[in-house]
């Protein structure tokens, strides 16, 4: 659906790249027309934000399911979809089909499977998938163990100028681990892997990306050692970026106590020291992207003994509210929040969105940053309620959402 009438949002706190600006915002023909000191014109639809926060629509980088109600609840207007679908996104036809599946009110940007069937061995048809709409290449839920294969993926991606999204866990060290080695895993008798499995994977992939001259993005970096590697690589000028989900800056492995499978994630929850390291890395810019990792899982995947359950959490609805805690705790400011949630993922995908700047797509979220609500597994919009934040009171909620200037949900 095309935007029929121009839209002006007045009396808003606009979160622009330069900082929060009081003012108005006008969009027409699906794009942002003017931001800041602008007045509504005759025939415009006007919305009074009443001092509310206006953010770009969230660009959720690396989700595992297209779950429109959850995305819209969370203010997400675009999602980069991981190739771990059934069947996997390793053919151009699947990519082009799924790229259109959310339109018009949710744009899905598929990430192409780096290897056929995500088995880490045979390169998939990356060029054809790019032509079919893939906006990046991903190794999937797993690391590519074969360094030769990974190098060829990165070289190919550099040629196509596509970002490679890597999962950072050394496969041999991680094995069938369901937890991070440490006191909790030891007490609970869970198969565990040392946190260094992440640093090893990050170190290798950075070295290969540097050789290939490719853009490399780690979807989740969750340990101090691995974050240090990313930090020094960035200082050297390597085109490497890092992401994280709220679980890893909100929770530590204490949360897995009582064998709570909703806290079974990949990578697993880490120690408190690593959680603090993630917060520091968000503050100092080592981490570029916060995403939901949205992965709704029903009871057949989750109501199991801990190690037998599938990893993942339904995170789309809580992404914004939990990220706002970083602003409240003065780890970051609003402008940086918008960069982490919107602009940085848009840059990785190479799309003209994710920022309140004239000329970009009019994807807009109106947010009441203080609105209190309680996360509830039973009452979530998502396809499944597997959240480790069940019962947690949070603040901040999207009150209205526009995709391409068109109001979402009527």
């Amino acid at each position, binding site marked *: 659906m095309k935007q029929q009438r121009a839209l002006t949002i007045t009396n808003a706190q606009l979160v622009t790249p330069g900082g929060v600006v009081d003012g108005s915002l006008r969009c027409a023909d699906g794009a942002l027309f003017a931001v800041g000191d602008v007045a509504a014109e005759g025939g415009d639809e006007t919305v009074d934000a009443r001092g509310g926060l206006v953010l770009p629509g969230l660009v959720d980088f690396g989700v595992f399911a297209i779950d429109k109600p959850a995305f819209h609840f969370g203010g997400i207007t675009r999602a980069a979809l991981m190739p771990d679908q059934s069947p996997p996104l390793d053919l151009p036809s699947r990519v082009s089909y799924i790229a259109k599946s959310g339109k018009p009110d949710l744009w899905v940007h598929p990430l192409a499977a780096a290897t056929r069937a995500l088995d880490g061995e045979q390169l998939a048809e990356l060029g054809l998938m790019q032509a079919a709409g893939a906006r990046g290449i991903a190794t999937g839920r797993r690391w590519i163990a074969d360094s030769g294969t990974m190098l060829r993926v990165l070289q190919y991606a550099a040629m196509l100028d596509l970002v490679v999204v890597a999962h950072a866990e050394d496969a041999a060290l991680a094995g069938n681990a369901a937890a991070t080695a*440490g*006191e909790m*895993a*030891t007490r609970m*008798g869970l198969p565990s892997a040392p946190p260094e499995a992440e640093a090893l994977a990050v170190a290798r992939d950075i070295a290969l990306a540097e050789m290939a001259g490719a853009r490399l993005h780690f979807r989740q970096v969750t340990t101090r050692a691995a974050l240090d590697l990313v930090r020094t690589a960035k200082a050297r000028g390597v085109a490497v970026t890092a992401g994280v989900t709220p679980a890893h800056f909100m929770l530590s492995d204490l949360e897995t106590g009582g*064998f709570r499978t909703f806290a079974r994630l990949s990578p697993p929850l880490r120690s408190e020291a690593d959680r603090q390291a993630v917060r520091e890395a968000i503050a100092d810019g080592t981490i570029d992207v916060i995403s939901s990792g949205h992965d709704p899982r029903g009871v057949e995947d989750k*109501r199991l*003994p*801990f190690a*037998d359950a599938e990893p993942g959490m339904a995170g789309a609805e809580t992404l914004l509210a939990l990220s706002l805690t970083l602003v409240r705790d003065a780890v970051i400011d609003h402008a940086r929040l918008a960069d982490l949630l919107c602009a940085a993922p848009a840059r990785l995908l190479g799309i003209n969105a994710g920022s309140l700047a004239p000329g970009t797509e009019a994807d807009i979220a109106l947010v009441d940053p203080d609105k209190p609500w309680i996360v509830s597994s039973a009452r979530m919009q998502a396809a499944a309620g597997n959240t480790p934040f069940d019962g947690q009171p949070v603040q901040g909620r999207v009150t209205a959402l526009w995709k391409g200037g068109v109001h979402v949900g009527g």
Partner: protein
Amino acid sequence: MTSAASSSGSAGGGAGGGGSRYPAGGHAFPHRDLTGIAQLERHEILYLLDEAEQWVELNRSANKRAEHLSGLTIINAFFENSTRTLLSFEIAGKRLGADVVNMHAATSSTKKGETLIDTAITLNAMRADAIVIRHGSSGAVDLIASKVDCPVLNAGDGSHEHPTQALLDALALRHALEERGEGAEDFTGLTVTICGDILHSRVARSNILCLQAMGATVRVCAPPALMPAAIERMGAEPFTDFDAALAGSDVVMMLRLQSERMSGQFIPSAREYHHLYGLTADRLDRAAPDALVMHPGPMNRGVEIDSDVADRLDRSIITRQVEMGVAIRMACLDILTRRSRGIEGWSGELGKGQWV
């Protein structure tokens, strides 16, 4: 300790007469299930041990039959192969007069999701009065316990806990010390070394918790690959050098290598393992004089323990451990079913006050 056997024999429910040193009635053991030692207080462990004494006596008499659990149905649901634990639970139930049913679930077919929950619901619908569960995944017993209405006993879940094993080990050790005239109600001052596959061992975890609750100092000894991370955070002192661990140990508990839980190679060979960690007669001499030898079984003779050590009557209490297993399991089944049997003092709701 010397009075334990006589003071605890209160017939029927041990409802706790005036002489008992434990909280009255159900307050002595305020748990519906026995899923792990981690959930138990020291006095609750002592209560279980004291209650087991009467069953030790019964098991040594000619007529080994009591009728406490007459009419009750106990289901042994074993999702993982077991001979001795299953047999021990079966004998325990039968000696108490219960109807005991064994369910051998092939691990492969029940590994899948809902099947485990469905199995639990099915067992529940058959109105079992207690369910004994062994499962290959840590936490599986807690999961099932949350889905059924009757008491659940953990007979071993993955690498997590095996509480009745730790309790029977404590009882066997207490008896052995008592026979030597070193009896005490707990193990204060005793140093126990647990050696073997600590990483995969639920017996080790339950024993670390149980022995420490009873005052013992616990050392664990294993090659680095079989030593879990941060084990010192559980209060156990880690060793890789078996001889160093043995020095001054009053009790040596040997564990077998759980090759069925190992993916990949953890040790080069059984021969080499024996060279470094096998309990030989020479090694045993490095421990405290008259140190006791324990093993939860099944033993791999010639690997972690030599036959001449395992069979030493004055030092090895391995067969006594098996004997105590039946008594401990009888005590657990008796205590956990008291609420459903309406024993006086045990009928109130868990955690609530009640008229005694």
